[in-house]
């Protein structure tokens, strides 16, 4: 029977599709929601590379290269050395946008995840959508950043484009953990500010980003080893200018990042399931 509200819906087919594609429907929702803050996203995507590359590429790099004689990055110069780190930092920054307050809004302020779950989407699919939307935004943002790096002559290797994937992996690893953490916040958002100040900012500074990790005292170096940003940056340097390191270490970077993503994602699924199904 056709109702006043349109043709009948095949409910069995709806359930089948939701079981298979629910994670994508959750991602789609988040992507559509980005339209509301598209201006901020575009400003960050195009503005960040311009600001950082002028400051570091034209400013700091010329100073470092003059005093050090372009010894960094195997003679390619400081900008080439720092380029994968800038990409990684941009990825982590964009990841924070999508995996903190946006996730809290879904649970608490707008409670849209409860609406998704009242439809056929499962908590696991909702959590997966939260991680996947970050991957998509990071791929787009890092590609744009990479084009700027090319324009600034900071990508000597033909494999340099793989830095996009390295940064995306690093950003996603941070995002997966933040999605899990933000999903667990039931009260106010102040713990997020603490995480940004005392975890994310130190991570950006002490992950072998602006100077090699080896320049730090040994007791500070573990910060880099556990930091997804260090692994993403080192991986990026291998691709960007052929930084020499043992192949097992390159593989370890990839595996470590994948492991952090997997753990963050599983935690996010578990916490989402508990919160929505209580």
């Amino acid at each position: 029977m056709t109702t006043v509200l349109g043709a009948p819906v095949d409910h069995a087919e709806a359930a089948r599709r939701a079981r298979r594609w629910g994670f994508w429907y959750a991602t789609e929702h988040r992507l559509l929601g980005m339209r509301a803050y598209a201006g901020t996203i575009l400003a960050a995507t195009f503005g960040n590379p311009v600001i950082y590359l002028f400051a570091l590429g034209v400013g700091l790099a010329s100073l470092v290269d003059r005093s050090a004689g372009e010894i960094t990055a195997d003679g390619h110069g400081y900008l080439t050395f720092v380029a994968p780190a800038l990409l990684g930092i941009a990825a982590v920054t964009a990841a924070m946008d999508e995996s903190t307050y946006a996730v809290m809004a879904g649970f608490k302020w707008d409670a849209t995840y409860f609406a998704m779950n009242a439809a056929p989407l499962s908590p696991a699919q909702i959590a997966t959508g939260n991680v996947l939307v970050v991957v998509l935004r990071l791929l787009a943002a890092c590609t744009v950043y990479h084009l700027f790096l090319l324009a600034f002559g900071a990508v000597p290797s033909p494999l340099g484009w793989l830095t996009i994937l390295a940064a995306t992996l690093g950003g996603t690893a941070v995002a997966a953990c933040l999605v899990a953490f933000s999903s667990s916040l039931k009260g106010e958002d102040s713990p997020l500010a603490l995480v940004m100040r005392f975890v994310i900012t130190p991570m950006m500074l002490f992950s072998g980003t602006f100077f090699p990790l080896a320049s730090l005292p040994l007791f500070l170096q573990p910060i880099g080893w556990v930091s997804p940003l260090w692994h993403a940056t080192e991986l990026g340097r291998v691709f960007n200018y052929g930084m020499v390191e043992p192949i097992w270490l390159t593989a370890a970077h990839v595996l470590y990042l994948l492991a952090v993503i997997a753990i963050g994602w599983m935690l996010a699924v578990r916490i989402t399931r508990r919160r929505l199904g209580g």
Partner: protein
Amino acid sequence: MTAVIAAEALEKRYGDVAAVDGISFEVQAGEAFGLLGPNGAGKSTTMRMLGAVSSRTGGTLSILGLDPDRSGPEIRAQLGVVPQTDNLDRELRVRDNLLVYGRYFGMSRRDLGPRADALLEFAQLADRAKAKVDELSGGMKRRLTIARALVNDPRILLLDEPTTGLDPQARHILWDRLFRLKEQGTTLVLTTHYMDEAEQLCDRLVVVDKGVIMAEGSPAELIARYSSREVLEVRFGSEHNVRVAEQLTGLGDRVEVLPDRILVYTDNGERELAAIVGQGLSPITSLVRRSSLEDVFLRLTGRSLVE
């Protein structure tokens, strides 16, 4: 008639606390069924179990012939859910809220366009299609939430306090829309604090308190069973009510003394009022009214405040 919902000894425990303590009921296809109860009675917990999002800790539950523990998505694909608090996406515009929700049911964008327009028409929001959600009034948001719940052409619509916080006009518009859905054959299950709403909308209802069912029946049956045909309300001033009430014993079926008035439950309020005046008592105000579901509700769940 076929039962679309069957709950048997349904239970939900959080540690030692039983939010729902072994309730049993059935809802027939096309019926408007109400769950009434004070705050903390277990209504919303029950609704979440009926919505196949919260698993039970005891008893059996069948929704549209399926077990929610095993077939959550299959059940939810056939439900429309209007939660107690609107959970619309404020980052999306009005029409986009419907489109994105329809996608959760795997519906194509091509099919969703006309359906969203029909739903906006139904919810009297067609002229607000491109508005931001925050620009809508409370009543409009509620209607949009209901429109969203209908996007999948649900067989059962679950409404948790659908009109709480709305002004009388908005409530009446909403009732009208719900009536139309009922006429169309949609099964309605609702919780409400408003007894007039329950009387207006529900064919049958259960009164729940402290996680258990206190009474079940149609509004008229419950009134007949737990109250009288009429209620006489008399006021003698808060300092005198208790003393005067002692002289009224034996009047009607039952006399209830409240701080501000005395209620006489009776078949004939005018006759009891004449008897009171005949005793030489002169109330400050008096009112004879039909007994309502509210009288039943207060009798069954008490008058003490639950917060």
